[in-house]
């Protein structure tokens, strides 16, 4: 008799206990996984399926008033290689044989697409670096062709590059992104309008965290979080792109022809204060700013002595204070002494019987001082500041120079300065301020703040327009009208004949001033012409400033021809019909 067969109980009990323990183990493990570790394991699973995308924000466009895009963001890809991943790259043909593999295979596929030498590319793809830049600014079609090759270890990162489709047009005022050393793809600082309008132009980057399947597609009902990128707002300027281009060409040509150092042109809409053109010679495409050098707007950053173009302030002052009328008579010598200081006219002439209008037409310094001799110093200063000298215009550009106006009672306002300010010497203005004086005269005596930004509109529908209000009256309408008539005499009967525009009545003033040049000598001439057109109902004020012309220094020779070109172009662009009436002649002599 077998004992084991006779006693099955202990074994069964042993097996039962064993099975029970195993089941308990399973149960415990199940509870541990399902209850204790559930969240952590689920999160770990999600994490392995989650993909994070950064979405760069598109910067807003800057547009001219006519809709021409002056600055915009264009998509580009930075193409990079992971050499470690490329080492694992294998591509098989339809028969299952390895067709391409590793860096050699990747280079063979990529080289013809990106236009690199295959051997050179193979060298770039070989190694143990996880990040090797290949192409810095691939256009999307190129990146698409690269990505379609499906080479493992080749990555493309989307970013936006600032582009200036109109090239150098308005480059001086648009500004450009600074790029710090070693940070070429991530500009952080700007100049020009790119700086002043940065808050509007800057978008908000977005990101997405998505649970994806093997093919990269979102898993239905899976995790999805993030915010989409928000583009910046578009800024619409007051500039007319064609006029800006014409003004830049005109001043560039004249600077070259006259052997001048530089020049600027400002064109204003006298009724609104909108800046139609703000051109500087030598302006380059902002995209090439780093290589070629691009300063800001010389028209607002540099100051000069306005010279005889500033006499219009004195004329306004004597008319407004009742010291004179356009037909007041004066016997004007070519030299005279005021306050113990000797002054001369530009040219020796016999004592002439000129009216106030004639004094302006002939641009006589002596006559101007004679007309204003009874005006107190404070009034002289007040009129200079009322016309905008000595304070910034507030135009939307950085680094505007407020200019210089000395204050009566200070050491700088001496016996000579109190007289020289009457004919535009001893004061410093920028070109925009100088043009602003004529805007006031052309607008019936009301100053409209010059501005470059007309409106802006955001992707979320927000939009706004620059409001300038009704302006600020500086002189009476009668005085302004009289001044326009006097300035017309300058063009018809005086120094500004070269500014005449066929079919249109023109009012304006020439100017030449002498400044201390870079070499310390007083041989640096600033030639200018500032005018209004059409004189019968002024629409535009155009200021032309040319620095240190070599072939001539006269405003009539150097600056007025540029005025004529730019003003003619502007009148056409604004659809201003030619003048049909004749000017009222104001006597210049008596």
């Amino acid at each position: 008799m077998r004992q084991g067969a006779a006693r099955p109980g202990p074994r069964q009990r042993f097996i039962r206990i064993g099975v029970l323990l195993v089941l308990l183990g399973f149960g415990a493990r199940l509870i541990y996984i399902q209850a204790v570790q559930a969240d952590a394991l689920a999160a770990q699973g999600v994490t392995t399926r989650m993909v994070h995308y950064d979405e760069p924000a598109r910067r807003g466009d800057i547009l001219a008033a006519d809709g021409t895009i002056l600055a915009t963001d264009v998509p580009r890809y930075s193409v990079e290689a992971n050499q470690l991943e490329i080492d694992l790259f294998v591509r098989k043909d339809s028969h299952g044989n390895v067709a391409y593999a590793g860096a050699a295979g990747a280079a063979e596929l990529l080289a013809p697409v990106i236009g690199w030498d295959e051997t050179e590319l193979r060298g770039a793809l070989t190694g143990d670096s996880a990040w090797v830049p290949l192409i810095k600014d691939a256009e999307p079609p190129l990146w698409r062709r690269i990505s379609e090759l499906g080479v493992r270890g080749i990555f493309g990162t989307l970013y936006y590059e600032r582009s200036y489709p109109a090239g150098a047009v308005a480059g001086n005022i648009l500004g450009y992104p600074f790029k710090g050393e070693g940070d070429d793809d991530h500009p952080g600082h700007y100049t020009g309008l790119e700086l002043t309008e940065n808050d509007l132009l800057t978008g908000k980057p977005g990101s997405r965290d998505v649970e994806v399947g093997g093919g990269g597609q979102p898993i239905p009902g899976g995790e999805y979080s993030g915010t989409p990128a928000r583009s910046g707002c578009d800024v619409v300027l007051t500039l007319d792109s064609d006029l800006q281009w014409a003004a830049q060409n005109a001043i560039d040509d004249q600077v070259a022809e006259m052997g001048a150092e530089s020049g600027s042109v400002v064109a204003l809409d006298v009724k609104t204060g909108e800046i139609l053109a703000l051109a500087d010679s030598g302006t380059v495409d902002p995209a090439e700013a780093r290589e070629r050098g691009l300063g800001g707007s010389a028209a607002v950053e540099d100051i000069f002595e306005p010279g005889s173009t500033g006499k219009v302030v004195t004329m306004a002052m004597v008319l407004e204070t009742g010291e004179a009328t356009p037909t007041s008579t004066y016997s004007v010598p070519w030299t005279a002494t005021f306050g113990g200081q000797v002054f001369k006219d530009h040219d020796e002439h016999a004592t002439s019987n000129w009216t106030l209008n004639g004094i302006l037409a002939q641009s006589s310094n002596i006559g101007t001082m004679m007309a204003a001799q009874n005006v107190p110093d404070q009034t002289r200063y007040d009129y200079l500041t009322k016309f905008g000298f000595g304070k910034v215009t507030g135009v939307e550009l950085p680094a505007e120079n407020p200019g210089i106006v000395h204050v009566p009672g200070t050491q700088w306002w001496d016996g000579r300065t109190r007289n020289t300010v009457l004919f535009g010497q001893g004061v410093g203005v920028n070109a925009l301020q100088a043009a602003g004086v004529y805007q006031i005269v052309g607008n019936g005596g009301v100053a409209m703040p010059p501005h470059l930004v007309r409106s802006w509109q955001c992707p979320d529908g927000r939009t706004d327009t620059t409001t300038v209000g009704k302006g600020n009256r500086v002189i009476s309408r009668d005085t302004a009208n009289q001044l326009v008539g006097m300035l017309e005499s300058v063009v018809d009967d005086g120094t500004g004949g070269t500014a005449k525009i066929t079919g249109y009545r023109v009012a304006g003033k020439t100017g030449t001033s002498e400044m201390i040049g870079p070499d310390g000598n007083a041989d640096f001439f600033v030639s200018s012409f500032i005018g209004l057109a059409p004189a019968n109902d002024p629409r535009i004020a155009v200021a032309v400033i040319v620095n240190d012309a070599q072939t001539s220094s006269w405003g009539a020779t150097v600056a007025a021809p540029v005025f004529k070109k730019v003003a003619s172009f502007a009148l056409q662009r604004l659809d201003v019909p030619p003048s049909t009436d004749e000017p009222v002649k104001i006597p210049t002599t008596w």
Partner: protein
Amino acid sequence: MSAIPAPVPRRASTPEPTTRPALRVVRPPRRRVGYALLVIVCGWLLAVGVGAVLWFNTTMAADAFERHELEVELADLAEQRAIVLERINDHESPASLADRARDLGMLPGTHITYVRLSDGSTIGQPVAAGEESEEVNQESEWAGEESGEESLSQPPEAEL
């Protein structure tokens, strides 16, 4: 004599006449078909539910793929649009237009003539592009200029 009472004689039982109704075959109670219907409906609902869930899930998965493909296509199209706009912007810049016009032999028109609709008259003098009218070439008889200060009393020789 016994104290025990004498037993009362039991009356002999006499058969009573039968009064209950005659037995008849009853029909078995109707089966509770409601349960079966419930089971069928539940089964049907379960099947439809499971089928619907499967269908919805399959559709959602397919839609997810389609959405992914469409998003990729959208991104591609957006990039293509950006590239095309970039080309257009380049072509419509003032400098490009001027170059193209010059290549076509065009010249800037400097004298525009307007027609006044009220009386049909023309305003301005038409001049062919590239030609200057006599008036345009008129120089001021007064050839001199002015200076701001006495230091300019001796202008460059070319102007004297």
